[in-house]
């Protein structure tokens, strides 16, 4: 404490700006500026232009947004509609499981069953894999002829080429891949709940379910809010799973918006970066809107 005030005094003598806090946030601020703020600003600018990544961008005002949002005859309108719809569907299907499954596993591990440490590492491991590795593993699992899943359950299901199985497969893969992150947060939260609460509940004769609903869940509220919002944001950015697992099929039903954005900007043809940027900006706005809504409804109402 003394040292800090000392430093403050020192700075006051030499200049009127207090440099210490800047030094602390400096490195992060710099990275934030270079890798986040500048690209976003540039992205917004590009969305108001027509650009092929090569020549100079031509400023076209809101034309890209108009085309995407209102021009029913345009392929980009269609791309945006189906892409956004599929992205929302995916978020709707995937997020609940991405919360509930890790929560369930964290609670189970919290009871410290035999070998729980091994299980904990096993559950956490998939999050360390790259998505391409994850997809290769699961593509083999879902294979119609040689896949262990069809073999085990004696099925003949075309997992990746039929609905609703394509969605089911995508959700399974996503949950499997992302269990680790949320699970660790829940485990930490569970460890932080004082044991006295449970002892008191035991004396009052509460059942296991009651304890979970009345003590465990409310005590983890802020962690759950945090994970719900972050999981939603990250699932909105779904890309690798449908790209490599279903290729956006069958008949475009799992083609998510980011696939269209990527293809327009960096596809095998000439780049259509303006349209792609505008789509990305609208997607960003959607994500912000959904996240704010979640904050609003899940916040601590005090």
């Amino acid at each position, binding site marked *: 404490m003394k*040292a800090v005030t*000392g*430093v403050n005094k*020192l700075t006051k003598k030499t200049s009127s700006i207090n440099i*210490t806090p800047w*030094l602390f946030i*400096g*490195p992060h601020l*710099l*990275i934030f500026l270079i890798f986040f703020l500048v690209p976003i600003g540039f992205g917004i600018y590009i969305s108001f232009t*027509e650009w*092929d*990544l*090569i*020549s100079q961008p*031509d400023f076209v005002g809101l034309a890209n947004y108009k085309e995407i949002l209102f021009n029913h005859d*345009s*392929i*980009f309108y269609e791309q945006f509609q189906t892409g956004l719809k599929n992205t929302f569907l995916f978020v709707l299907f995937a997020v609940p499981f991405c919360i509930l499954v890790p929560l369930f596993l964290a609670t189970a591990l919290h009871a410290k069953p035999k070998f729980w440490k091994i299980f904990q590492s096993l559950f956490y491991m998939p999050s360390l894999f790259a998505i391409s590795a994850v997809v290769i593993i699961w593509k083999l699992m879902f*294979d*119609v*002829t*040689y896949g262990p899943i069809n073999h085990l359950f004696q099925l003949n299901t*075309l*997992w*990746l*080429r*039929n609905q609703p199985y394509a969605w089911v497969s995508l959700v399974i893969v996503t949950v499997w891949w992302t269990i680790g992150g949320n699970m660790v947060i829940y485990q930490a939260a569970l460890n932080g709940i004082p044991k006295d609460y449970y002892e008191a509940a035991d004396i009052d004769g509460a059942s296991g379910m009651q304890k979970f609903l009345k003590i465990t869940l409310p005590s983890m509220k802020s962690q759950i809010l945090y994970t719900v919002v972050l999981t939603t944001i990250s699932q909105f950015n779904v890309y690798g799973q449908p790209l490599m697992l279903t*290729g*956006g*099929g*069958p*008949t*475009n039903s799992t*083609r998510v918006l980011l696939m269209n954005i990527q*293809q*327009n900007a*960096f*596809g*095998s*043809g*000439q*780049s*259509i970066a*303006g*349209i792609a940027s505008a789509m990305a900006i609208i997607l960003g706005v959607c994500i912000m809107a959904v996240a704010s809504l979640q904050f609003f409804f899940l916040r601590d109402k005090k």
Partner: protein
Amino acid sequence: MKKMSRLLLILGTLGLVVSLFAGCGNSTKKTGAGGSKNEITFWNPFTGPDGKNMQAMIDAYNKTNPEYKIKNVSLKETDMYTKIPTVVNSKKNIPDVTIVHAERLKQYKDNHMLTAYDDYLSDYPKMTGENYVTEAWNIGNIENKRYSIPLDIHTFGLYYNKDLVEKYLPNALDDQIVTFDEIKEVGEKAQKENIASLGVSWVKPNYLSLYAQNGGELSKDGTTPTLDNAAGKKTYKLWNNYVKEGYTTKDGEDATQLFLTGKVVFLPEGIWMQNQIKQSKINWGLTNAPQLSADLSQAVNWSSSHQFVLFNSKERNKAKTKGVIDFIDWVRDHSMEWAKSGQNPASLSILENEEYKKMPQAIFLLDPEEQKTLKIFDYKYNGYVSEYLEAHGVDTIFGTESIDDSLVNMQKEVTDKIAKDKTNNE
């Protein structure tokens, strides 16, 4: 003491910031030019097993002690194509020579990104059309200027299971052409034993090859797409029919895996897949892609080609450019290593190599008539067509999407995307 800690803090922060920038600096050096003066930076998309063959070629060349040594920079294909416009735009660290796919040449040329070779070629008497496969060579000639020199021509052919062919239709390969009628004949017998006659593999080359055989063109004037037509319908209808009759692998099945385990008689695939096919136990051969007619002069084999190009760069002076062409000229005479990766070198000098002549993919080059069947689809907007076929082709072949819808939408999507290209309005 207080001063000391503050100093340390500042130094630490500075160090962090500096190391950050140093990190950036390093990464550009890895991919960019401007390193040593006598070094040629060579970008290519060979990150797979073929990357090793390329590295071996470069090592062999560097051992000849050329004035300019080659620095190999293999980038993941998608990353390389993303980086190219950025780097060329920035006018810094532009690679001295780059390998790109033939289909992209027109796009780059129309965007004024390429430097032509014409001023230098007079010094290289052997770098002429007669020493290369015509289709691969001609693609680099745009509006009477030479913008690229071919490394190879890679073809989408047909792998067949020799034992199964022997069983179902022993004379099918007498003429080295498997027609769709023959596939049908095999299919009728094979399906009773739960074996597919034809594997449904990569749709794009399959579709484009048959589409061309049906007389279809991607564009008549080079710009406006002509995709929704009778040829397209005929192409998809044939596939639809074969699926319905049970001659093909089923939706969702992995045709290559099934071929490798002897459950598929014919598998259309690229010659570059050879090294994977080789590892299986089946007794296989490689021939022309499936054809409508048994007449070789009408055959079409979808092909693409890796081409050496020079992206505009002020850092590449005359001497260096010569260094680049020296390398390409050396490759022309030393492409056996490249053939080992399964590819067909574009340089015809390979035909004098006995080892090459025994390679399965040599079928496409040995006979000059065969060379004429190789077709590169160089429509300027081929990329947009590919994207559509990748997204909708499988659905259309298996009938989950109607042929009419698929073709109408392909025409629409490609047209709408082209409308965004400014290079047409110049």
